[in-house]
Structure formats: structure tokens, C-alpha cells
């Protein structure tokens, strides 16, 4: 449709200036459907979001949301194991799923006329998963391999996992999404059946479709396939708020590695937990992260990677759109000839500066200009557009927050950035982790086996 569309509507009409239409529906069984039209290309993405993830889990069953995500491909009565993926594949679709702390989501990207195929299969597995034990026993081994690959053998991921489990005490954000190995080893099919019964229901799901679709037709299909599903009684998850941190925490992680690595995290509010009278604070923290790490011209790259050249890499990040209180994060690797201690001091000096002096107007404008441009660039991906809606719905903020976010960011002042730096970037609320490299094994240089190599 590229090109053709502009011709029909008359050249010179800027389509982007009219925000793409978003349609929101609620089925009688409590399933929410959101459709975002984007007619640039004859494709669509269909995503099903469940309000469940590792922050809904408790000790002993950690990783169960993620293992269940894997098991969602292991069949129903109507579509036995493997058939889901086969049908999507034969329809030219790309599919996958992902689990986070706050949600579990499934998606298919397909040619625009295949919403029906997606809905039929997704509706079926929302309520009718068979969860056979033999499939589970194989699949949990796959997940253990995934854990080995992502975490056990990756010293920075390992540091991140231990850092997280130290930073939080009572908050379930302590729990790694993939689960502790010991919990995976003792997981049973009953754990998955319970978890599935507890959370997989139309009234705990949001279906998001973005792309070249007709909203009325999508609604009709949703009613047909998801409409007949019975709702469940969803018991609200307990608040499990993080207790107040009463002093700095430090940890070391010793693992085979070549390079040291530093992580620092300050407890910080998010939009959902912010003081209503100070609802600008999370947005000021977003801007603060941008001042430090919004591109190569931002302070960390300019002053620590270049400038003093203390860091080989340095970053800052913060996400205002978590479900629960979260962390403002700094991380980095010192450059050769510099220590982790020096890097930590340099990062703290940066934070001190933000507490003492207001950010310059020009610097602030630069951060805002980037976020404004990003709003246009992200429309280049239907997947991203749907994902943004899914995340905001799943954490309970609602998709309209996407526009609110931009308004709030543009309104942030230098004084507000300074205020949140002073209020939240405090030693007493800080956790610091250091990866201390252990020898990778200098005694065993590469050696050959099985015949020499001849060309």
C-alpha cells in the first residue's frame, strides 16, 4: 500500500499529523480488545497479554510464569503439541512469546487477513491447555538450558541477578524472571496447572491488534473466538511493597570473567507508585536518565567515556512504566588503568553535580527533542506500537499513558530534575554490585582434537 495511499488521499496531506486511531472494546467476559490502525503496509500483529509475570510469583515456584509461557506451545485437545507453531508458520507468520516481571505476552505477526487464524488458536490455548507431563519434563530442561545460556555462563547477567536479589527485600522484583535453578529443578506439572488456572482467563487478558485491519472486523472476530470463553475469579495480587531501605548495600560477585563490571541502583518511584501531588517525579527521573545517557552527546559518554576516559562504557537507565517501585540504575566497565572504585566515584560525582546545579536549558531541550523524534520513529514498527499498548494496559496504567508520557516529559523543568536527584539518589537507598573477575583458565589454552585442519 506504500505510495498508493498518499495518492488516494491527496499528496501533501501529512498522515502522521493525524495520530493513528486506537479503538478500545470490552467483551462481556471481561476481555479487553485494543485495535490500532496502521495502514502503511498490508500486515498486522496480534498480541495477547496476560497480567502475570515473575512479580506475581512467590519463593519455591520462581520461574513458573516463564515455564508456563513455554508450555503454551505444547497443545490443547483441538491442537496438539507443535500444531500451533506449524499453523502459524504455514500462514507465513512469525510468532513468539515473552515473559517479564509484570506480564506474559504472545504474538503473531502476519499478513493482514489472518487475524482469524491468530484468534482461533489464541482463544483455544487461553482456556484449553492440556499441559501433558511428558512434554513438561522435556520443556523444563529446555528452560534450564536457557538459564545456563542467559545467566549462569554470562558473568554480567549473573551480577545483575544477584544485584537485584540484594537490592530488594520484600518486593517480588527480587525474583529472576527465568527462576532460580533450584526451583526449576523441583518444579512439577501441578505448579503449572495451578498457575494456568489462576491467571489464564479472558478477564485477565488484553488482546492488542495493530496494523492494516478494520476494527469492526477485528471486534467481530474477537467476539466469535474469545467471546465464548468463561471468565475466572481473579484474586488481586497482594501489594508486597518494598520495605524502606535503611542504608547502603554492597555486594561482590566472583565469576570467571575478563572485565570488572559495576552496577548501582537507587530505589525510585514509578508512575503507578508516585505521590499523586508529585506526579511529575517519574518523568523528571526519565529526563534525568536522558541527561546522563541520552546518546553520545549526553554526560556519561561525553565526560566519563571521552573526557576523563575513566569508563570503557557507562550507562544510566530508568523505566517509569514498571508495575511496582523500581530502581534508577547506573552501570559501567572501567577503562584500562582505572578501577571499579574510581568509576563509582566518577558516577557519584555526576549525580552530585545534578543535585547541585540545575541542568542547562539547552541540554534539557536536547533530551526532549530526542524523545519527541522517538515518538515519530517508533511508528515505523507496528510491533512496537502494539507492544507499547500491551505494556501500559498490563501494568494497569492504560494505553492513553503513552500520550500523557510525552506531555509530561515536555513539561519537565531543570528544577524538577534537580529535585528528584536530591530526593531519590541517596546513599541510604543505594545498592552497589561489583563483578570481580576470576581467572577463565590460563592453564588450558585451546587445543585440537579429531584430526588436523587441512585446506
Amino acid at each position: 500500500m506504500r505510495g498508493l495511499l498518499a495518492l488516494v488521499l491527496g499528496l501533501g496531506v501529512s498522515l502522521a499529523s493525524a495520530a493513528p486511531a486506537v479503538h478500545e472494546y470490552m467483551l462481556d467476559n471481561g476481555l479487553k480488545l485494543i485495535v490500532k490502525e496502521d495502514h502503511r503496509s498490508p500486515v498486522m500483529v496480534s498480541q495477547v497479554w496476560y497480567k502475570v509475570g515473575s512479580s506475581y510469583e512467590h519463593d519455591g515456584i520462581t520461574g513458573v510464569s516463564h515455564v508456563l509461557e513455554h508450555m503454551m506451545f505444547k497443545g490443547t485437545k483441538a491442537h496438539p503439541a507443535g500444531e500451533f507453531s506449524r499453523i502459524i508458520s504455514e500462514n507465513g507468520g512469525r510468532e513468539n512469546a515473552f515473559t517479564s516481571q509484570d506480564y506474559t505476552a504472545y504474538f503473531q505477526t502476519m499478513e493482514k487477513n489472518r487475524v482469524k487464524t491468530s484468534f482461533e488458536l489464541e482463544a483455544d490455548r487461553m482456556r484449553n491447555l492440556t499441559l501433558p507431563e511428558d512434554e513438561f519434563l522435556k520443556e523444563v530442561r529446555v528452560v534450564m538450558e536457557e538459564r545456563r545460556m542467559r545467566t549462569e555462563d554470562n558473568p554480567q547477567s549473573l551480577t545483575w541477578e544477584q544485584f537485584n536479589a540484594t537490592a530488594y527485600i520484600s518486593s517480588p522484583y527480587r525474583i529472576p524472571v527465568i527462576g532460580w535453578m533450584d526451583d526449576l529443578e523441583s518444579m512439577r506439572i501441578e505448579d503449572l496447572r495451578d498457575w494456568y488456572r489462576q491467571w489464564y482467563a479472558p478477564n485477565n487478558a488484553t488482546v492488542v491488534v495493530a496494523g492494516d485491519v478494520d476494527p469492526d472486523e477485528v471486534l467481530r472476530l474477537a467476539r466469535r473466538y474469545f467471546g465464548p470463553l468463561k471468565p475466572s475469579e481473579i484474586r488481586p495480587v497482594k501489594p508486597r511493597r518494598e520495605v524502606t531501605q535503611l542504608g547502603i548495600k554492597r555486594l561482590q560477585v566472583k565469576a570467571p570473567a575478563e572485565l570488572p563490571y559495576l552496577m548501582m541502583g537507587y530505589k525510585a518511584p514509578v508512575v503507578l507508585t508516585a505521590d499523586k501531588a508529585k506526579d511529575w517525579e517519574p518523568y523528571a527521573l526519565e529526563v534525568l536518565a536522558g541527561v546522563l545517557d541520552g546518546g553520545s552527546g549526553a554526560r556519561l559518554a561525553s565526560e566519563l567515556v571521552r573526557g576523563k576516559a575513566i569508563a570503557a562504557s557507562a550507562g544510566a537507565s530508568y523505566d517509569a512504566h514498571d508495575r511496582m517501585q523500581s530502581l534508577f540504575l547506573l552501570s559501567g566497565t572501567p577503562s584500562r588503568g582505572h578501577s571499579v572504585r574510581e568509576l563509582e566515584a566518577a558516577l557519584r560525582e555526576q549525580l552530585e553535580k545534578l543535585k547541585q546545579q540545575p541542568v542547562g536549558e539547552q541540554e534539557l531541550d536536547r533530551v526532549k527533542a530526542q524523545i519527541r523524534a522517538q515518538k515519530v520513529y517508533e511508528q515505523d514498527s507496528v510491533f512496537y506500537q502494539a507492544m507499547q499498548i500491551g505494556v501500559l494496559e498490563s501494568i494497569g496504567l492504560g494505553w492513553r499513558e503513552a500520550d500523557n508520557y510525552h506531555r509530561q516529559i515536555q513539561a519537565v523543568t531543570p528544577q524538577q530534575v534537580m529535585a528528584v536527584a536530591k530526593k531519590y539518589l541517596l546513599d541510604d537507598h543505594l545498592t552497589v554490585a561489583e563483578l570481580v573477575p576470576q581467572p577463565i583458565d590460563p592453564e588450558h589454552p585451546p587445543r585440537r582434537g579429531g584430526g588436523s585442519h587441512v585446506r
Partner: protein
Amino acid sequence: MQKFFTLALAAILTVLTSAAQALPDIKSWQTAKGAKVLFVAAPELPMVDVRLVFDAGSSRDGDQPGVAKLTSALLDQGAGGLSADEIARGLEQRGAELGGGSRRDMAWISLRSLVDPDLLEPSLELFGKVLAKPDFPAEDFAREQKRMLIGLQYEKQKPAAIAKKTFYRELYGSHPYASHPAGTEDSVKALGVADLRSFYQHYYVARNATVVIVGSLDESQARKIAARLADSLPEGQRPPPLPPVAELEKASEVFTEHPSSQSHVLMGQPGLRRKDPDYFPLYVGNHILGGSGLVSRISEEIREKRGLAYSAYSYFIPMKEKGPYQLGFQTRNDQRDEALQVLRETLSGFIGSGPTDKELAAAKSNIVSGFPLRVSSNSKISEYLAVIGFYDLPLDYLNTFTTHVEAVTVEQIRDAWKRRIHPDKMVTVIVGGGEAGSSSP
């Protein structure tokens, strides 16, 4: 399965029509100094992507491994008298994004900007400096050189990265593709500013450039931008073709001990050129064998049936000369031999009897029906244009892609795999714990 079969056929019919509509209309021309330009007008969003691609990847490193990559990294670290800070901030204050990098075949530099002239104009001005007037300041050079050394050190703690580096070395012997794009500790230390300047002057020239533009511009605007950028470079010339890749003569296995709980295994041989006559039979065949995610044979055998790995796959990386054909997985050390045996049996089984009719129909259905997804965003179209331009593929490459896929037969796949893929002469690279061992073919 009868049901799927009809479904698949119907799918092909419907999609052929819509795929035709979705195809980007590519305009192509040469600039005065001989750079090739590919342009697609995408008026829907007020943004533009501009990318220049050069035959200036690590395959041009010669006896200075790492020089292509370090040259690419230095471009925006000082240009036209402006500092790295001034360049970065100048772009960021207009919301523009600068990108770049280099691999074995190509090096590229890209700009994404809004099309509002007040933003685009100054962004293009800065981009032009980075492209045509890099200063290679001594201090920035020294720093980036150190960062590249840290990057090499970082790779040593990642078994997947060690495996990949070893795999290319073993596969390509004395061919330029053997060398690691990031070089070695010694080769990077030996580089100086003069080496980068010389590399830059040699390869970042108009005749060696492909310019890709996708965005909300008309053709005359695109022509101006392409000329302004490419023709600010000296005309220069294209480098000579790379030597062909020699076939492997016998199987080999390299084991690198690493204190990881998993072994990373890569197996393969030189595979496909971009303009290879066997491209489609090998591509479609591999889709069935290991290239289509969870539904491919390799994933079915290693992951779905046996739970041995999170990821098990095979793919071709088509390059100017034969890029790798690579099969791989990662698994707990004590399961490595079992998984490797399954991988080898699956491969030889496929070469022995080829795909079934049903498998081929399913693969075609996936590729053809899914075709619109390949060109559904400006980013993806830019990627394709870069490939089409850089590898001199015909401009109707996308238009004829599904037709070529449809035409592939079971016999062609069988024939191409027997002729081209040789499990008895493959390299096997293992990085992990435990002893090297009983896994030799």
C-alpha cells in the same frame, strides 16, 4: 494434514496479490561521481533514513586486522573541525540518530532524521562532515583503540563469541573472511592514525558507495541529498574483487576449554554467495532443515523431542564470496556429544533424502505468505535496499523473490544439497567444559 494443505494453497493465492501491492517502488540512479543510489518514497511518516554502504569491511583489512572497524568507529569522533561532543549534540538536539558499523563485507554509516527542513538540513550538514571530513584526532584515536582492546577482552568471557571467532578462522584459513573484524590484541595495538586515514581515503570513495534513502521525500529531494553526500567524496574506485573461498578438504574439530556450564557448538562449511545460482534451493531447503525456528527439523529433534537445547538451528549467511553455512546449538557439557550426534544425523538424513513434498509446501507457504512482513517498515526496506545495492542484485529482486521460491522443487533441493553440502568435510568448533572427545565424525 489434508486441511493444512488446502489452507496453504489458498494462502499462496491471496498473498500473491497483496504482496504485489506491498512492494516498495525502487528508484535507482548514479551520482555524478559514480555512487549508486537506491531510493524509496515513503510519505506516510515525516521521517527519512539515509545510509551509505561501502565495500570497506574487515575483508579489506589486509595485514592490519581491525583497521576497517576502528576507522568506522572514529568517523564521528571529530570531523570538519568539530569535536565528538559537538557532532553528537548537534544531531541530538534535532532528534537525529547517527548509526554506523562494519562487518566482513561492508561498512556503513546512517542517519535517521525528521524531515522538517529546520531539523533535516543541519542534521545532513553534520552527517556530511562525519562522512567526508573525519579528522581522526589523535586523542580520540588513542581512546577508541583502547576501547577496542577492551572489546576483545570482553569477547573472551563469552563462549558464544569465542566459538564464532574460532569458526570463521577455521572455515576460511587464509581467505580475508578468516580474520576477526575486531582484529587481535597485537594487530589493534599496532594501528596508528595514519593507517586509518589511509584506509579511509582508499575505501570511503564515491565509486565504492551505495546510497540508500527511504522516507518522506520526493525523488528530486532524494537526488539532491544523494549528490550532496556521495559527491562530497573523491571519485576513487571500487576495490578489486575478493578471492574465491576454497572448499574444505577434510573434517576437523577444534575444542576450546572454557569454565562454562554449557558447550557452544558450531559446525559448518563455506556456503553461499549472494549471487549464487543455487541460492533458492539451498535457502528453501535450509528453511526446512534448520532455518524456520521451532518447526524446523533440527529444532524438532534437538529441542522439541529431546529437550537438549534452548536454541538449535542452521543458516546460510550469504556474502560477496561464500559466506558460512552454520549449524549450531548450546547445551549442558555432559549432553554435548548426544546433541552433536543428533545434529549430524539430522543433517545427513536431510542430504540423503531431501525434504518431503509436504515439508516443501509448508516452507513455501511460510516464505510466500510471510513475504509482506519483510518490507513492512522503512527500517526493513532500508536494509533490503542496502543489500540489493551493495551486492549488485537486480532491482526487481523483491518482485521476483516469491516466484523464485515457488519454483523450487524437491529434486532441486536434493540435488543442490548433495552437490554443495559436505558433512564429511565440515569444521566443528566446541567451546565449553569437560574433555574434547568422542564426538568426531
